[in-house]
């Protein structure tokens, strides 16, 4: 799966779940937490979506803002994680 495909899938989930409208887009570099797009319970929903969609498990130390606080960060982190798994 390419980085862009991951980004599209995450972006769609965020629009549907947190903006309740798939046609609306959150900027790729926008801080999801800082701008209130998601809150602490929203993060749990996001993590569970990523785990089930991409069949991965996250270690506790991976669950940090550097990996998940924007669509850009999520797609980079997920791409790297999936590449590691496939190699």
């Amino acid at each position, binding site marked *: 799966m390419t980085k862009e495909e991951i980004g599209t899938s995450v972006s769609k989930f965020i629009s*549907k779940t*947190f*903006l*309740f*409208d798939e046609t609306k887009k959150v900027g790729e570099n*926008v*801080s*999801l*937490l*800082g*701008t*209130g*797009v*998601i*809150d*602490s*319970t*929203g*993060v*749990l929903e996001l993590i569970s979506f990523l785990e089930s969609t991409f069949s991965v498990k996250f270690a*506790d*130390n991976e*669950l*940090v*803002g550097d990996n*998940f*606080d924007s669509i850009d960060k999520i797609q980079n982190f997920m791409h790297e994680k999936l590449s590691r798994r496939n190699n």
Partner: protein
Amino acid sequence: MTISHYLTASAKKYPDKEALICGKKKFTYRTLNDAMMSLAGFLVANGLNKEDRVAVFLDNSYEAVVSVFGILQAGGTLVLIHPSTPAERMGYILQNCEPRFLVAPSSRFSQIVDAEKVCTTIPTHIYTGNDDIPISAFRFDVACKTKPINDKNIVSDEDLAVIVYTSGSTGKPKGVMLTHRNFDVVTDAVSEYLENTSDDIILDFLPLSITYGLLQLLVTFRTGGTLVLEKGFGFPYEIIKRIKEEKITGFAGAPTVYSIITHLNLESETFPSLRYITNAAAAMPYSFIPKLRKIFPTTKIYLMHGLTECLRTTYLPPEEIETRPTSVGRGMKYVQLSVEDENGNRLTSGQVGELCVRGPNIMRGYWNDPDTTAKVLRQDKNTGEIVLRSGDLFTVNDEGYFYFVSRMDDIIKSRGRKVSPVEVEDVIYLCEEVLEVRVIGIPDTLLGQAVKAEIVLKKGATITADQIKAECKKRLEDFQIPQKIEFVQSLPKTAGGKIKRTN
């Protein structure tokens, strides 16, 4: 003591001590004091008069902290607006309090323009961040390098310090007016019972736009401690890491936060630095306490009660939590509490009545709303003293311990925030397809209460739950949007045809 004096006094005493940590950036008391004085100088030089409102639409950040103190030092009144507030609600707030200035991130420019469409007067904009800004606006970093305000203290304890907008049962946000004195007595009492000192390193992940979050900042700066400011509790393991890295001695949370903490895998972790944790905003479920004890065996747990209109009322001494886990404790210093019936008669032990508050922590009233103020602030029929009717049902026992029963009206407390059912219903009713709607709170272990909308559709009409949520998203804050939507055939009504809140 006025609020900005906390920073001035600590800057004199501990100029080179770390006062604020935001991510990797650290700021000393001297740096913050200089920025505060310059921002205050800028505001006054640009026409700010005493008690003029200044709206702050920022997330938890260095800029938000400097704004809080700079505005107050200049004699202004702070209006803190949560960063997730949608344009329509923000527009209502701006139109209601008519701020002279608005401090906001340049990246939110288009939302601000949207919000201001309903405003009769447009505030002067001060922007943080690097995006392009209109020529009429100012940059925050430039304002913070202006000639400082002179030292002459123009602010008094009785001046209006903060207006906090909170959901009301009438549906529209109400502006709670709090003075410097309100905060001063509360921060004094709170720092005394939490035993705060300059050695404390306090973690604050609650938004500064709510009083519980703001009080963390004020108590820390009053006592010369260090505040570690986070943008939220979104990444719990990151917060746990911060507690260990920064050797955090105390933090404040709500049941939603503690619910998440008790579900984390923390068996191999220890928290030797953590002196205390506090709970407010909603009652802590009893079942959480033994779980938290296991995670934080050497940490004191404080259960407290408060409401925006008087900031804080009670705390339970932590050594009593095992014997009285369902109590929020006794009235704190300066505050007199009683449980009264609707006519102001004090009720005796065990009788359920409304918690009434007397003392210097009581708000001045609701901004521009004398009618609602008169309903909530009444005169004691014997002493003439001002009494705040809290709207919370309580019992008190013979020893003076208070027990929360429920809200008197139907305000839903979800994610530690207040949701007015009427406000949500008003938005859902905007959908043409909806015939009747009732919004209620239902128990939820994570959220405290979840918001549920029960909807009767017009005959033959179709609309999905997601479409209704999308409509809500346009006009409401996230915490107000129903988590559950159920389509029903009918709703129970009173004889007068009013939809009943309970079945």
